[in-house]
């Protein structure tokens, strides 16, 4: 039976390649049908905003890559409620359907995976 992996993405979308490279781990695992989930935490929650215009920075819009997650079988996408609140962001209107979790729920989430990678 395949081991499940939770990928925690903590970097803002244009703080270098980290956000893209965390997502690539998820997409690669999805391509191999591995049981994966992603959690956006701390500045990582900024990756989920759909009102962004990265072209102004000559950067790629990660939204297209994020939207590929369910296509690659990564359907469990979570976002930290506290991280959103801290940044004055709502849990609705995000670029991709993500379940907002409170800290107690995040603890339970971490506990149920075989592997965790925090980028």
């Amino acid at each position, binding site marked *: 039976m*395949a081991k499940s992996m939770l990928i925690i993405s903590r970097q803002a979308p244009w703080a270098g390649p980290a956000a893209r*490279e965390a997502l690539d*781990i998820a997409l*690669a*695992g999805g391509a*191999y049908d591995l049981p994966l989930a992603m959690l956006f935490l701390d500045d990582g929650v900024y990756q989920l905003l759909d009102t962004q215009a990265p072209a102004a920075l000559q950067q790629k819009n990660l939204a297209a890559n994020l939207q590929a997650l369910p296509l690659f079988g990564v359907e469990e996408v979570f976002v930290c409620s506290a991280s959103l609140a801290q940044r004055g962001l709502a849990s609705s209107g995000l670029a991709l359907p993500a379940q907002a979790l409170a800290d107690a729920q995040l603890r339970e989430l971490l506990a149920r995976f075989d*592997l965790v*990678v925090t*980028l």
Partner: protein
Amino acid sequence: MKFAIAVYSPAHSPASRRALLFAQAVLAQGHQLLRVFFYQDGVHTASSNIVTAQDETDTASQWRAFVVEHQIDAVVCIAAALRRGVLDEEEARRYQRTAANLSQPWQLSGLGQLHEAAQQADRLVSFGGH
């Protein structure tokens, strides 16, 4: 027990040195090291162009020596490597770049190798950041 190690920061970072010491201890304790996977800035570890000052620790050379001595499966993520200018002969030819700076014992491959190692090992231990 079987270990897989992932290295996300370059050879001059303290994290890389810790990863190497951990890898050495894994073998010294009689455990197996299935693979060391280099991702993000960790791909620079495989560059043959690193020149370390005489009064500094040459962790990149130490990694190379460790990989060779113990015949470790040392995989460097190709996408991360290309982005950072770490290319083998094949990629240098493919992209018409003037120099290749990655060769044996390092191998370029995809993230699938990280997942495979994570699936097969008893523990995946990652090193990076600082």
